Structures are given as C-alpha cells and as structure tokens.
C-alpha cells in the first residue's frame, strides 16, 4: 500500500497537486500616522515563482517588503509564509526568508567575514559550513582580496555584494531582493541576473522589487504593479502586454501609474528655458 502510494506520488505530475501559496497576503493595511500606505493588499504567490514587484515612489513596495521580512509588525490583515502566520511565528518565517535591503546600510566598521560570520551564527549555520560558504560567495563576487578589510572603505557596490551574500547565506526558500542591482558594476549585474535565474530554476521563490523595468521584464515570471497602496496590475509580462497593448514594461508602467503625460512633463521642462 505504502509502496503504491509512494509510486503514485512519484509518477503523479507535480504541478497537478494543488499547492498552498508560499506567500499569501490577505487584506493587508498599513498606515504611517494618518497616512495610509497599504490599502488592503491581497497577494498569493506560489513556490518557485519569480515575482517582479514594481510601483512608483511611495506606492508601498518597500512597506510590503518590510512587512514580509519582519521589519514592520504593526500592520492589519493576514500574512502567511510557507503556511506560517507571520504574526504568530515570525521567527519561523524569518528562517525561510533571505532579505537583501535596498540601501547598503551596514555596520561598516566590521569586515565582510565578521559581518557574515555573525549572520551565520543567527541562522544557526555550522561554523565550518559558514566559513566555506562565505569564502566561496565572496570570491564569486570578486571580494576575496577585501574579505578581511573593514567595510567603511568599501564602495556602494561592494557593500551591496556583501548584502546579497548575507541574504543568500542560509540558502533560504524565499529570497526578497529590494533593488539588489543598486550600485553594482556591469559585470556584477550580469552575475546577479544570472543568479536570480539559477535560483528560480532551483525552486526558490524570488520577490524582486525594483525600478529597473528592463530587468524586471526579463527575470520575472509574474509582475505585480502596485500604486497608492493597491495592486493595480498582476500577471505575466505577456498577460500585461495583452491587457495594455503590445508595449514594453516601461510603457505599461507609465501608462498605469503616471498622473500626467510624461512627454508633456519633458516639454514643460524644456519650456522653462524659453
């Protein structure tokens, strides 16, 4: 019987088993003082998807990300990650998530090895494993010569590489990237883009937050567009194209979010010289 069951599971197509979403937001609201930032966000993300999460400045992207990562806990609504309620067991959720923040803010008097060593300690990664992994990852990013140098002398891009390493160090199931390419040189951008594709193939769920529309267009399976605290478009790039006309993501974004014509704004700027 057990043998039959296991062979059934083995031969039954994986994608036909109804899966529980790995990330689910139900009616999430968040205010900063009197100002509402998220106005009832509903999202359901399946495992293995690469989500491009885009929106204009102040739309609520970073707030959503911070809620998911546990940086903001005073929100209304329900957030579950891998079936775990974020409010009920935030620690268990954090084990599953790797977060790369937007700004390269680090305790930069530390060296990358020290910083990542401390992170490894918090994720309970055995020291031998952590040491080897840190070494390999920093080397892949071309930071091997600076591993034991203090980060206060690092460029923004170098710090970003350390942050990316810290987000991936514990091999999380879900990776949340908030503008990960910010400050990176062209070669590193290629590495990170390639890395996103490989992680996705490996079954990781990637929540990619960015203003770089061309990159989002290329790497995402599904694009979620948020504006003024609400989801205003959701689908694959092809679906969005079908809905909005055969346009680039940049144009779709502008069409859905700009309050006035961007072309007119440029004209108005030029008129200032008249």
């Amino acid at each position, binding site marked *: 019987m057990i043998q039959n069951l296991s062979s059934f599971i083995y031969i039954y197509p994986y994608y036909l088993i109804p899966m529980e979403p790995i990330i689910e937001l139900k009616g999430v609201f968040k205010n900063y003082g009197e100002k509402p930032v998220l106005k009832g966000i509903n999202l359901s993300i399946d495992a293995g998807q690469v989500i491009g999460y885009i929106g204009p400045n102040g739309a609520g992207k970073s707030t959503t990300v911070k809620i998911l990562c546990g*940086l903001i806990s005073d929100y209304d609504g329900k957030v579950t990650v891998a079936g775990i309620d974020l409010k009920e067991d935030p620690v268990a959720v954090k084990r599953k998530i790797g977060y790369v923040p937007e700004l390269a*803010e680090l305790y930069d008097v530390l060296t990358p090895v020290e910083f990542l060593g401390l992170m490894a300690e918090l994720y309970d990664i055995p020291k031998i494993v952590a040491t080897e992994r840190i070494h390999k990852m920093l080397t892949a990013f071309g930071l091997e010569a600076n591993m034991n140098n203090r980060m*206060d002398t690092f460029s923004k891009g170098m710090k970003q590489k350390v942050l990316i390493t810290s987000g991936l160090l514990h091999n999380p199931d879900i990776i949340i990237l908030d503008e990960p390419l910010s400050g990176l040189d062209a070669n590193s951008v290629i590495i990170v883009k390639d890395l996103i594709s490989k992680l996705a193939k490996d079954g990781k769920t990637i929540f990619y937050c960015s203003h770089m529309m061309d990159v989002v267009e290329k790497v995402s399976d599904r694009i979620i567009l948020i504006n003024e605290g609400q989801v205003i478009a959701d689908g694959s790039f092809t679906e969005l194209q079908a809905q909005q006309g055969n346009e680039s993501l940049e144009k779709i974004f502008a069409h859905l979010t700009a309050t006035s014509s961007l072309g007119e704004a440029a004209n108005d700027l030029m008129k200032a010289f008249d």
Partner: protein
Amino acid sequence: MFINNFFLFLLLLPKSIYEKMGVNTHHLKAILTTKLMMDERRPPSIQQRQKKKNAKPIKWATLGTMIMSALLGLFFIISFFISNDTVTQFFLFFTFFIFLLASTLITDFTNVLIDIRDNAIILPKPINDKTFLLARLFHIIIHVSKLVLPMTLPSLITVGIKYGSWGVVTLILLIPPVTLFTIFLINALYILILKVSTPEKFKNIISYFQIVFAIVIYGSYQIVPRMINMSVLENYRFPQTSISLLAPPFWFAGSWEFLYHHNYSIIIICAFILSIIMPALSIWIVIKYFAPSFNQKLAMISGSDTAESVNQSKAIASSTKKTFAEILANLFTKKGAERMGFLHAWYITARSRDFKMRVYPAIGYLLVYMVIMILRSRKDMLQELQNQTTSGKFLFLGGIYFISFVIMQALSQIKYSDKYKASFLFYTTPISVPGQVISGAVKSSIIKFYLPLAVLISLFGILFMGIQILPNLLLGMSNQLCICFLIAYVGFVEMPFSRTESITVKSGGFIRGLISMLIPFILATVHYLIFDYTVAVLILLALSMIAVWLVAGSVYNKNWTDLKVGYQD
C-alpha cells in the same frame, strides 16, 4: 546671520579694487554667502562630538560658536592675575590662545580651511582663479575671526583695565601674527600625520585628538584652579633666556613687552623679531610647499578607497585560530545569539568613531572627577587606606562604586549608532529571544569598560589594604554587576546599535535615571555601614550574587514584546 552679513559687508567694501584685480565680485559674494550659510547650519566644532543624526536643524551656529569661544576666552583672564611679571602673564595668555585656537581649528580644517568640496562643486563652474582664491581666503578670514574675536574679547577688556588703551592696541596688533602662526602649526601637524598614517588612521587620530581636547579643557577647568597656589605663583617669573626663544608664545609675549614697556633687552628684541618673521615665514612655507599636495591628500581622507585591513593575517581559512574577542565570548556567553551579540558589540565599540566620540569623553570626565576626589582627600591617603580609617574606607568604596558611572555611560550608548539602519539584521534574522543579543552586548561592555578598572582597583585595594579586603572587594564588584544588569534590564527597550539619539523613549526614562543615580549610592551606603562586619559582608555578597544571576537571567530572557522600539526606518 547678521554677524556673517556684517563680515561680508566689511570685506566687500573695497569692491572696485577687487574688480580691478580681475575678481568677479558677484561670484565672490555668491560663493561667500553660500559658504557662510552652510557654516550657519553646521554644529560648532566644540559641539561636534555631540551631534545627532536627524536632530533638529542647526540654526544660529555662528552665534553659538562665538558665545562658546567667548566662554573659553574667559579662561585666559587667569593669566593676567597669576604673576606680577607681564612677560609671564602674556606668555601664559599666548600659550592658552595657541592651544585653544589650534584645538578648535583642527576639527574645522577639512570643512573650512581647506574645503575639498570646492573641487567638485565650484571648480567645474565658470569662475576665474582669482575669484576662487579670494573667496577661499575670505571664508577662512571670516571663520577664524568669528573664533578669535570673542576668544580674545575678555582678555582685551582685562588688559584695558590693567594696562590701559596702549596695552589693548599692542595686544590687537599681535593677534593676527599669532593666529597665522597657529594656522601654520595645524597645517604642519596635518601634513605630518598624513605622512605617517593612512587616511583612515588620520580620521581616527583627529577623533582621538578631539576627545583628548575635550577632556583636557574639562580637566583644566576643574583641576587647575584647585591646584593653583597663588602665593607661589605671584612671584613666578618665566625665565627670559635664549632657550625661552624656542617657545613660540614667548615671541609674542616678548613683543608685547617690547612695544608696551619699551624693553630693549637682547632676548626681548629677538622675541620681537621672531614674532614678525616666523608667522610670515610659516605662511610662505604653507603656500610654497604644503598647499600644492595638500588638497590631493585631503581628498584621500574624504573619499578614501584604500581599505584598511583589520587583520590581514587573519585569513578566513585559519578560522580555527581564535581572536581575543572570540576567546572572551566563548568564556562568558552561550553559543548562538548571545555570542553574536557579544562579538558584534565588541567589534563596534572598538572601531566605531561615532561610539568612541560619545563614550570616551564622558569616561574622561569621570576620571577627572576621580582625580579631583583624590586631590580633595588628605595627603596621607595611602596611610588612611592601610589603616582602614573612616576616610580610607570612604575612599576605597568611592573608588569601587564610582566606576559604575563609567560602565553606565558605555551601556547607555550601545543602543545608539549612526548606522542604525544596519540593525535590520536583528529584525530579519530568526532571533527568537532578543534578550540573548542584548545580554551579549551588555557582557561585552562590562568586560571592556568595567573589568580593566575593576582589576586595577582590586590590585590597588589588595596592595594597600591587604588580602582581608577581598570580601569587601567581591561585594563591591558583585553589586556593580547587579547595577549593570539592572540598568540593562530597565534601559534596553531596543536592540543594540539600532537607534539614533533623536528618538526618545519615554518609558523607563525616570526609572533608568533613578537606578543610575540612586542604586549605586544606596548600595555604597549599605556597604559602608557593614564594611567591618565580615559575616554581614559575606551574607550580602551571597545575596548580591543571587541578584546578579537573577537579573542577568532576566536580561537574557527578554522577548520581543519587552522591546518598546522596533526597527527605525
């Protein structure tokens, strides 16, 4: 702003002369107005170590700087009442003046005297060299005048009263050369430090200098008046020999003597000549030799890309070899979050300039108080300690309990960081009990800031009071630990290094203050009363140790709901 406008108006009076020289006076005025506006919004150098991120915008900085300079200048007056000899009086005055002006200017150097931002902002604009140079020169003149004028004002009034108007005129004549010479001294010091150190170390040296400066000024105010024996000093005369000519303040003191008293002795004439030649020579050296490479070197300081290695030999492969901090962490903390908190706090408190600037001056002030305490006690202090007299006991317990203020200062600051946003790591990683991180950070501070002083006092106590003092020593230290953990328990409502100072947490403020001030006092009093009863001391020691164990456990077990402040964005 009125003061700045006044200076600007004065300097721009001979407009037509500047224009004939090829200077664009519109550009000149625009650059100077902007620079002075920027100065107005920058905290005065004297207060820079207290600057807070996201604090209220700075206004009236010029007035603040001038008032502060005038207050510091009041200190100079003492020179004119110390000795009956005018050369000695003015020697002291110029010594204070050079020291204070140099110390104040040292922190302003990269902001004002050589403003490297000019290279990026002003130089690419269509501004001619003459305008640019004159703007820089005027900016320096205005800045230095804002320091020097109020600094010398109290002394000018005093000299006016004591020596009449000619005395004042003579002093006014000597202020510009002594100021120029001071600027040269700082310039030379900068070049010297840059030659022997990396830009990163240079920043550290300047920070340490600021700390030492703050402590010296504070210490001078507190200790010097107590030490001065007026009757001895009244008859003191600074020797007027050829060796005295090696001391720059003597040149200017001699010049005053030369001009006011018409003293034409050889030494005084030499001093007078040196007071003219040396400032002129020093400015020539600055322009000719220092200035050309100076900007480039200072640019390295602001945008240094030479990474400083913490310990290059500590290769990642040799991670089996433990550092001193790791050995301590293994000894005093449990594996996991607590150890991480310990190491994190250890590294940051050792390396962060921001932390050092906030904590070390305060510790320095406390040490100054300790020196005052010792000075106040009678000279046969050691004898009293040995005999364990009332004042001997008082001194011993005072020493033990006083150091709790040092650790309190460190503990009160480990929650703050200028990189507070980096604390995302505590909030996004799976830390189930945040108290473990806090406990690690507290233990790290205790070991770093308390243990060395405790060991010192223990050695001192055992050396002078014998081994029988041990129970009292242990009780004192156990009580100290109890206070530390109590403060950590009440005071830590956030993760370490996760806050800017501008955020105030209302809860626990009063209780924290009460514990900080009252508990050491109460414990010290109780300890004093039972000092001679060994059994009572031992009983209290046992109770105290149980209290330490309980309170330290409570800190360790603090959970997320106990934290009042979340991630600060």
